[in-house]
């Protein structure tokens, strides 16, 4: 396996897995964000 190919698969993992992890962390924050937006709109 060439260096280019290893770099490509690392990028795929960062892109795929990384974005999913960030999205899960975002989902964890959503209830608090929504609560804040709801409180401000009252």
């Amino acid at each position: 396996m060439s260096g280019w190919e290893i770099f490509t698969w690392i990028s795929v993992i960062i892109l795929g897995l990384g974005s999913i992890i960030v999205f899960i962390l975002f989902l964890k924050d959503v209830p608090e964000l929504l609560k804040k937006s709801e409180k401000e709109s009252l």
Partner: protein
Amino acid sequence: MYSLAAIDYIIIVIYLLMMVGVGIWFSKRHSNFDDYFLAGRSLTTPILITTLISTYYGIDVLFGDSQLAFTDGVVAWFGYARPTYAFFLIAAFLLANRLKKEDFRSLPDILDKYYGKKTRYIGALASFIYSLPALSLYGFGMLGDVIMGWPPFVGMLILGGIALVYTLTGGFWAVALTDSIQFVMMCVVLAIAVPFAFNIIGGFDTMIDVLPAAYFESMGDLSIWLVIIYASTGLTILVEPTFYQRIFAAKSYKNVRNALIIGIFIWGSYDWVVTILAMAAKVGAIQGIIPADVAPDASLLTIMVVALPAGVLGLFMAGVLSTEMSTLDSYCLVAGGNVAYDFYKPALKPDAGDDELIQKTRWGVGLSWILGFVMAISFDQMLGLWVFMASILISSVLVPILGGLFFPKFHKPLAGLLSTGLGLASTIILNMYIMTQGTFVVEEETYVLHIGQWNIFQEYLMYITVPISFMGYMLGIIFGKEKRS
């Protein structure tokens, strides 16, 4: 038009309905302008990552990167994409901290604070022009044609209209939350596409065997001057209005810094995967898997249509739509804020309340969309138009913004006024001149003016207009008086 399976269309329709749903959900949830325009300044690191990445990367990056990679190889990443990461680092460690220290709401707010109202209005005009969604709407026209077989203006109206609806109704909350969904869509589908693309061309080793060795040279045939020009396009990051809006909307500086550092890894991976997929498309064109005469900017979509199975292709197309929607909505909102908060309130109605500002921002969003639409259907050479719009922003606000943020002694109204005014005027005059008197060279994809033996590219104009802006700034510092507090 590519032929998609029924399941692909169903996925695309579900995705579009979901975006409208988020906008309607947030339509009545705004208590004040800060809430509508900056999501209550409460964005945490994960949502900042998602909204920064999805906004800054539109299909211009997707197709622009892939076009260069298809024709030249890995230089698309090393020469074109990589330098921008340095600017993200500068933004993370030097700029964001300064910006978070003040209670700014928009980029022209900074100019107002340091140089006064006149500079604010010029900066707001530059930001408004830069944020017009002409290129995004043009992209929707192209995608509507490719996916559905619609004439370009129908794609602009329907797909661009959906982004307009949720931006108008939901404000920055809707933009940030749809950005998050769009972020995961655009990243995951690209990652999934790689094994399918390798499978159809016969693996990475085949790519190395089939493509010329120059495709794997990190700087390819690029001259040092072209590298400098590519690198300097990253300067936009330092005055990017949507980027500033996200810094102002963040909960704290730490959130912005962390989001940018993590984001650089995702941006880098995204660019690299696009580069490799486009190179796989080149192999596909050589092997006869896709037409040999495929347009370089359509090569990525073409290889995906061949490589991806039904369902996955629908997800990919929804991901491509996401890439563009997340860009269009953010720029429309910034342009709307320029109209309401940077023009209307200070110039016409200083006592305007939050409800009125929200309403005027919505008008501004609509206005920017309409102007963008008119430009998208009127101009033939969108790339030339984009270079013009980007250089307007850099040439008018880069010098006074950085000067104002980092050199407190230079806060003289005349410096701001001369710098923004001369930068804006010289950019408009020189770009108009080259776009009317020059010729559009298809191979270079830019306007070129021939003067004697010299060929002046449109992109070079920035190297005249930014120094003009800088000279105006220095003159203002020498001859101007201090700003009265």
